[in-house]
């Protein structure tokens, strides 16, 4: 019994079919509990007023935007090294989800920034880095869509994911450097783990768990779709040849 068994598409389909209802249920419960708790049962913060409630969407979405890219990097490496198709398809499946989380992070950030900083958008290092991350997601998705041969597409996007990771990382720090000379610490992005008391911290943890489970659910669903799509293509090709 090893993890590589799940590289077999059939085995993956069986296992994911079994897991999917459970993960979906857990994701629903965690999201509901976390968001309802956060929205209805937390007090307002001194500095932020009621806007502190946005944190339950903003922070988990931002965390998952980065985690999704990391997951794509790992699955791309697995594809390049061990040529497991499920791995490449999981990376493909994860990209739009990561983009969605990035957009949520940016949108909630803009809505939060409006009352707090008095502007929808500031060229704050974190915001800029996230915008760049969104561009990386777009490029990755576009490359998948543009290349017809699925194995070629998997190879090329994997190389892009690796190079992109390095440059996304570089951009993160370049942006930090770039803004130093312009603004003082205009960002109010606080270090949540340290500054936030338990009242906010506990529902936030539940929300993060909910977002992680949501991500897993969506990856499973979309990977299953991709596997079926590949099988469909294979069957159609066989039909044409017969």
């Amino acid at each position, binding site marked *: 019994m090893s993890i590589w068994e799940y590289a077999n598409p059939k085995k993956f389909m069986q296992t994911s079919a079994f897991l999917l209802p459970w993960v979906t249920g857990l994701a629903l419960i965690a999201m509901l509990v976390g*968001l309802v708790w956060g*929205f*209805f*049962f937390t007090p*307002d913060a001194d500095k932020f*007023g*009621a*806007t502190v*409630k*946005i944190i339950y*969407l*903003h922070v988990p*979405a931002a965390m998952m935007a980065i985690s999704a890219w990391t997951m794509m990097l790992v699955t791309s490496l697995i594809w390049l090294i061990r040529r497991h198709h499920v791995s490449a398809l999981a990376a493909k499946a994860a990209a*739009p*989800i990561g983009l*969605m989380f990035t*957009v*949520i992070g940016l*949108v*909630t950030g803009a*809505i*939060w920034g*409006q*009352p707090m900083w008095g502007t929808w958008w500031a060229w704050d290092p974190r915001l800029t880095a996230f915008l760049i991350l969104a561009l990386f997601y777009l490029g990755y998705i576009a490359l998948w869509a543009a290349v017809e041969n699925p194995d070629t597409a998997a190879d090329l996007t994997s190389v892009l994911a690796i190079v992109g990771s390095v440059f996304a990382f570089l951009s993160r720090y370049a942006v930090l450097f770039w803004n130093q000379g312009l603004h003082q610490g205009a960002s109010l992005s606080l270090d949540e783990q340290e500054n936030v008391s338990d009242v906010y911290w506990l529902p936030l943890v539940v929300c993060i768990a909910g977002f992680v489970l*949501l991500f897993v659910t*969506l990856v499973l*669903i*979309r990977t*299953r*779709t991709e596997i*079926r*799509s590949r*099988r*469909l293509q294979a*069957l*159609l090709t*066989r*039909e044409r040849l017969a």
Partner: protein
Amino acid sequence: MMPELGKYAGAVMWSYAASLALILGFVALSLWQSRRMKRALDEVEKRQEKAGE
């Protein structure tokens, strides 16, 4: 049961609405794609089984 959101009610409501709309929309899209692909695959599989007999 609505909590008192004060002057920031708009911002909070909008971010929840926007995020939930994005998430639900994306889940619906994924489910729809999944259904469609499953149906297409089933169709071809059945057709090929018949042809194979």
